[in-house]
């Protein structure tokens, strides 16, 4: 099967600083991919390149076989949706209004059933008439997730399975919604969407992803199933921590051994 999204020998150099180099990466339709790595490894830069927000200084990005830069913004939005880590909102839109933004140019009456479906799926019905600036960070993030899922659903109804990009989607969610979100991502993948998420929590990543891509200093240090990638050796090399890896079922589980970096430096 041809990849839903594909990056070939991509690199990003800004003002002499190389943020990414030699990145070869692809995700197939229906695949869940977690991008992990220490701070400054280039995870967010990679996601911005995948989303089309940044053009790589070297290499190409393709979505469903066509060069990313050949898509006009509205066409691109029909094939890929992006959940950003932080979205600040300066005017008092309600949750329902924010979610409806995901419907694009679809007339309001036609969009409403889709809006209702998303509000239910993300458990936002109780908050639908609340203004976003009055909500907690996690509640706002869920509203934006519903908006992004609606955009994805609208695009997929027209063009078939698309690409969903999530930038640390669980950063301000409580445990219950972290798990909900991971399960939701997996459900989307079962329907054919390629779901790519930056995750900090390695245990969550191992539960979420078919494949984990480990970034380190702008390069891909490892790529494979959770069992292949989440290893003591990788964590020592890339994250500089000593860990014990346990197994729950078939999935690796990380336990930091001592609460200090492996090299002894802070």
């Amino acid at each position, binding site marked *: 099967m041809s990849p839903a999204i594909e990056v070939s020998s991509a690199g990003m150099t800004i003002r002499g600083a190389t943020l990414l180099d030699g990145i070869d990466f692809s995700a197939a339709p229906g695949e869940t991919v977690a991008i992990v790595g220490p701070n400054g490894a280039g995870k967010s830069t990679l996601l911005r390149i995948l*989303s*089309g*927000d940044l053009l790589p200084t070297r290499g190409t990005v393709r979505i469903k076989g066509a060069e990313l830069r050949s898509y*006009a*913004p*509205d*066409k*691109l*939005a*029909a094939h890929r*949706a*992006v959940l*950003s880590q932080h*979205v*600040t*909102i*300066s*005017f*008092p*839109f*309600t949750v329902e*209004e*924010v979610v409806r*933004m*995901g419907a*694009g*140019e679809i007339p309001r009456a036609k969009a409403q059933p889709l809006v209702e479906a998303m509000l239910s799926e993300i458990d936002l019905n109780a908050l639908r*008439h*609340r*203004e976003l600036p*009055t*909500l*907690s960070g996690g509640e706002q993030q869920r509203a*934006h997730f519903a908006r*992004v899922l609606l*955009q994805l659903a609208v695009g997929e109804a027209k063009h078939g399975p698309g690409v969903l990009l999530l930038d640390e989607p669980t950063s301000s969610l409580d445990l219950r919604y972290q798990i909900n979100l991971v399960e939701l991502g997996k459900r989307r993948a079962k329907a054919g969407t390629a779901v790519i998420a930056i995750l900090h929590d390695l245990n969550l990543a191992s539960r979420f992803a078919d494949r984990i891509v480990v970034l380190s200093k702008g390069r891909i240090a490892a790529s494979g199933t959770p069992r292949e990638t989440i290893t003591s050796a990788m964590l020592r090399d890339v994250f500089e921590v000593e860990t014990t890896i346990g197994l729950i079922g078939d999935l690796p589980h990380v336990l930091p051994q001592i609460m200090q970096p492996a090299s002894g430096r802070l």
Partner: protein
Amino acid sequence: MSAAEISVSASSPHTAAAKRRPKAFAVFAALLALLVCTALLAATLGAAGIPLERLWPALGFGGTKDPATFARDQLVLWSIRIPRIAIAAMIGALLAVAGTVMQGLFRNPLADPALVGVSSGGAFAAAFTIVILDSMIAPNAAANAFELLPLAAFAGSLITTLLLYKIASRDGRTSVAMFLLSGLAIAALANAAIGLLIFMADDRQLRDISFWLLGSLGGATWSKAALLAPFVIIAGLVMPFIARGLDVLVLGEQEAFYSGINVERLKMISIVLVSAMTGAAVAICGVIGFVGIVVPHLLRLAIGPGHRLLLPASALFGAALMVFADTFARVLTAPAEIPVGILTATIGAPFFLYMLLRQRALVGS
């Protein structure tokens, strides 16, 4: 009170927890009724008063007993008062929509074309036309510099807006402080240049310039109204096309791009639209401030921030407010007139301060 209730009321200090929006139809009906009422009020009041029972015949509804008064009423109404009401309504609509679009573009409820120097840029271009071009063209007398005024004011506003955007936004983000401060600096520069022009002007030019600086709807004629009308029509035609873009832009330029908006095109259309509307308004009646801040702010409280409704509602409410303010300016010291720009600033500036203080209270810094 349970802990949950406390946390809800603490997180939304100034609104009820749930926010329900009124229906679009009800909003337009109410605003249209308001506009008609203020227009009728404006038609009856003035140096030559026309009470309601004489207004209807003069407007062409029903007969009259007194032909002499009827003729005078008709003259006052059709050649002085109605063109003035029409101009006031169009100026109000243009300024209010310009403010709304600018606030959407800069994602900042404190943006206003007059406040951040866009009107000053237009006024400088107008003053430049009056003083410099007039003395260059006057000997030939064939062309009148006044015909160039709308064009000059538009060009001045456009250049100012572009400059402001270049300075205040970086990597697709606009800093509020940078925006207000650079607007202030641009306004100061434009005002200094206007000062220089005043210094150079002769008596007649001086009178023309001060008319522009104070902002007045005096001297309204049908031909001025005809000059404004195309701008109102163009704004009305463009509004539906930028409404969704401005909504999503509230989430930031990056999110707007992710949502499928052509951000660069949206910004370009918005900047040209704001400049054209502000320029046209400045060319006809000079600098009138704060309409663009007060109108959208009050409307957002009542009908929400969605631009599909907010933009046309701003036009209607701005029109009504301006007709009302102008009537007030005419009547307050009749038969003399206060320039309406002084009036809007007197009401608008404290309102702006109140908004600043409220924002500080909300942010808590």
